[in-house]
């Protein structure tokens, strides 16, 4: 049994079958990549996993509990964190404030009103946020407006914000899209480090094969809304079906 079990999931948008009979099992503490050409249904699948979309049929179980019908914040509280394609951070706030918010959320749950005490007096939260920034090499920028950071650092911050909540499953939606090579490599190193150091499962949706093959332990190939093959990176590389799906080659 994997930590995330997707069974017979179907999703239609009008006449378009976005997901057809998707079965997927992600093993605990692994790095699992989901790849596929444009329009394969990768993003739809991700949106189903985080509660943004509800599938027409099928079930999605996280650690034995169904995630279907729950709101995004409830799914997050179950231990699933999501990193977006374009970094979703609080760009009006400073880097330190950005990092404090998920830690507050972790401590206080969905809602608790602390309207009287001062943020500056929350020593525990501050210390945790500082420590996290330290480990991400962002500590020097702590008082900077997060909107002013580079794309790569925004991504680091977003990943850090997710990690601050100590999730059990980290979902990444094309984390290196639109990034320079150096930033991409930094992100790969960061993710490697995370998966080595923590008890965490990482599911990554990616276009960039360099990223996929440097990170993934298992790869699922999605085409036209259906999983084509699932295997180790080495097997996937030479798989005829994958070549066909990606390059349109006929199996000769």
């Amino acid at each position, binding site marked *: 049994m994997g930590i995330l079990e997707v069974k017979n999931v179907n999703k239609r948008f009008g006449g378009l079958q976005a997901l057809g009979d998707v079965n997927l099992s992600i093993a605990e503490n692994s790095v699992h990549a989901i790849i596929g050409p444009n329009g394969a249904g990768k993003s739809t699948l991700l949106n189903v996993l*985080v509660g943004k979309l509800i599938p027409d049929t099928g079930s999605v179980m996280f650690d034995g509990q169904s995630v279907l019908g729950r*709101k*995004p*914040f409830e799914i*997050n*509280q179950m231990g699933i*964190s*999501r990193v*977006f394609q374009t970094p*979703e*951070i*609080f*760009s*009006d*706030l400073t880097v330190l*404030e950005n990092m*404090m*918010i*998920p830690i*507050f*959320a*972790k401590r206080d*749950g*969905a*809602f608790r*009103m*602390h*309207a*009287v*005490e*001062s*943020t*500056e007096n*929350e020593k525990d*939260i501050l210390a945790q946020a500082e420590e996290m920034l330290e480990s991400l*090499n962002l500590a*020097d*920028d702590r*008082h*900077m*407006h997060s909107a*002013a*950071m*580079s794309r790569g*650092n925004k991504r680091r911050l977003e990943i850090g*914000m997710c990690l601050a*909540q100590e999730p059990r499953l980290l979902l990444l939606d094309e984390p290196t899209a639109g990034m320079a090579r150096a930033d991409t490599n930094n992100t790969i190193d960061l993710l490697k480090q995370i998966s080595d150091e923590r008890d965490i499962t990482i599911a990554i949706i990616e276009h960039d094969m360099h990223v996929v093959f440097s990170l993934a332990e298992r790869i699922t190939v999605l085409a036209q809304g259906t999983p084509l093959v699932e295997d180790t990176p080495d097997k996937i590389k030479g798989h005829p079906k994958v070549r066909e799906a990606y390059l349109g080659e006929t199996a000769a």
Partner: protein
Amino acid sequence: MINTKIHDMRMLVIVAILALLAPFILNPFPEGSALAQFNAGYPDLMQRFMIFGIFAIGFNLLFGLTGYLSFGHAAFLGVGSYSVVWMYKLLDYNIAPGLILAVVVSGVFALMIGYVSLRRSGIYFSILTLAFAQMMFAIAYSDLLGRFMGTTLTNGETGLQVYTSDPQYLINDWEAAPHLFGLFEMRSTYTLELGAWSFDFNAGYYLCALILVLMFYISIRIFRSPFGLMLRAVKSNQTRMNYTGLNTRPYMLAVFVISGMYAGLAGGLMASMDPLAGAERMQWTASGEVVLMTILGGAGTLIGPVVGAGFIKYFENIFSKINDSVLHGWFGFLPDSLENAAVWVVEHFVGSGWHLTLGVLFMLIVIFLPGGLVEGGQRVMKVFSKKKPEEEATQSKPAE
């Protein structure tokens, strides 16, 4: 980063001192001089500065922190006024029970309106709040609820006031005007004559000023609290907030209720200064006014709403007092034809046409000072203190 605590305390002290000395500051011109019409130091106007200041501070808690633009805050103002007048009618002229009731009732109304309106964001939220406020205005103006119950509740377009036939169960013989536990009447004023100058010290004004300083302090605390941080996060990125395991709805509702209570308190104080409550207080123009005040002063800043409220109320008062004869006095040095032309142009911007001036000022400020008057003040300060460049250098340090 400058120490925010010291900065906030300094601001609070400045507001307190300004409020304390307002009777002097607002009356800089001697009585009877040509410039005396620019004086604003009379009790009625000073009370309005403070009351609208409270209103705008509360509005800014919602709009400044979360970016949710409520277009129906005047409804809570009206609810507060009616509550206070009802306490006059039922008990006596002591304002304390009325103010407490005003805060509670406006809080309840805010809870109901907020619960429904906060299901939507952006323009839909604004329209929902506007719709609720206009509904409440219509109900108050026609006294629909009162007629339904076979009594008067808001007394329709006449407005609610105290009659001798009212029960007033706790009334004493000496009570004739709003007072606080019999300590002082709101209208009691001490006038200090100093040469050609005269300064009014009004009890009601000082009560309003005290409450404003208190409300300003509470607003600082909310801005600097984790709760305030969460609200700023909602404004900055609601998506990330949802995927951070936080339910934004209760945060929004809490601040909406707090903001409504501020408005209710302001409305209650209006009726404390002048024992009347009319439906026009709830009209959408009143809701729009507080939006203008907050944006003009600087939305999202601590002091901005107070500055904006003072600015609008001052100019409203001064400009609307200027009439034809005053204008002819000003342009008297010109030849007749030019004088008439000048008066004809200017008269559209003063008196009842003062809103035209407000519109022009608002446009200029929004275009050239998007951060409001507070940003203007900061720019002026920067020009005068051109040192401390190192502070800015650290702020905009590029990322590695």
